[in-house]
């Protein structure tokens, strides 16, 4: 919201590409601030590895669809824009699915069920609608990179916490001596909500301190 307001105000400085990149990491982080794309955030963040792979796949789709939407922004009539965006996003999700299969059978085995869910990730649609359809290709790439990286970071911070507490390990390596009682609830769906709530709490406390301080 704030960046759009800045864009329209001619008196203020137009945000540079670096600003477009940085905003996705912190100020407009897709998960912790915009609270977008909750389905994969809660479902695939039960281990650090799954979270990282899912984040990267989503970031790739986000980048490619932002580029294509931005390139075609004068060609797509308003009335059919959502249908066009979904078509473009679905295409890149299909491509991602094939590419992951070509990279590693094991990786596809662990992610396969969730790849197709990227189509309905509202983060990607919202960036296409709110940013790429109104900005140049260069800026759209920076926006996608920032948002994508912000999404990866957020997913990873959830996945790492859940794997450490729920499985006693990180990236499959055990952290605790035998006798550590795992919190099985953390890798169950409920654990996703607990962890997300905790992170949102931390984020909001920091933000509040910043604005008052």
């Amino acid at each position, binding site marked *: 919201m704030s960046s759009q307001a800045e864009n329209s105000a001619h008196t203020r400085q137009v945000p540079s590409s670096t600003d477009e990149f940085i905003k996705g990491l912190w100020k407009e982080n897709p998960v912790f601030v915009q609270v977008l794309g909750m389905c994969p955030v809660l479902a695939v963040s039960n281990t650090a590895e*799954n979270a990282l792979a899912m984040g990267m796949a989503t970031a790739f789709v986000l980048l490619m669809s932002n580029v294509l939407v931005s390139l075609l922004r004068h060609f797509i*009539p308003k009335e059919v824009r959502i249908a*066009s965006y979904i078509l473009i996003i679905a295409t890149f999700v299909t491509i991602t699915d094939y*590419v992951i299969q070509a990279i590693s*059978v094991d990786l596809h085995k*662990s992610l396969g069920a969730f790849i197709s869910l990227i189509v309905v990730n509202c983060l990607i649609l919202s960036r296409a609608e709110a940013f790429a359809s109104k900005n140049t290709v260069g800026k759209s790439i920076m926006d996608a990179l920032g948002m994508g990286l912000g999404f990866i970071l957020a997913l990873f911070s959830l996945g790492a916490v859940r794997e450490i507490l729920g499985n006693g390990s990180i990236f499959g390596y055990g952290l605790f001596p035998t006798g550590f009682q795992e919190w099985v609830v953390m890798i*169950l769906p409920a654990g996703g909500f607990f962890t997300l709530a905790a992170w949102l709490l931390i984020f909001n406390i920091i933000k509040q301190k910043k604005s008052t301080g």
Partner: protein
Amino acid sequence: MTGQATISKSSSAKMLRAMVGIGVLCGLLIVITYEGTLPRIERLRAEALQQAIFRVVPGIVETQPYSLKDNEIIPAEGQDEKLIYAGYDSQGNFKGVAIAASGQGYADIIRILYGYDPVNQKVIGFYVLESKETPGLGDKIEKDTKFLSNFIELDVSLDNDMQAVLNKVVPVKNGTKINPWEVDGITGATISSRAIGNIIGNSTEELVPIIYNNQEVFQKKKNE
């Protein structure tokens, strides 16, 4: 008013052009990626299957696919449904078979491969080929070492007539395994681990007597 004016601006032809254009472009992109990745995907899948076979029948270096037709084992050719993979060691001796089986898991159909040693009449290995079980819980059937140790020496001996499995493989609750034909389950992955026990139970019940009584098929093929 202005909103209506702008809406009527884009003609149907323009919309049609945009949708068809994007559709064609997207279709093209998908076809190119599909064609481009297909050879590698097929090679990786074949390699993964090969490695899975080597894993479930330890000590083999070569395999030969067979399929089942009217209770008879025949060498699989081309697109035949391959079900049984005979394994041979470096001297060409028949060591055992890897059998593909599948069944309903918690999320979807689970496809597995398990090794059978006709000499000792035991299941000697197990590997999940494809599953969509819940990550972190149901997918323990692939990683849990205690669960996997069920399938190192799982008893599937035949009865005195050599026509049926003496004790069908059955899944039991975690920690209650007493007999060598029972599959100890996983806490937190009860349904998935039971599914594996049942898949192997049903598959061995049907196939083990046939394979045991037709062992010469595998030996013969190798000597030719």
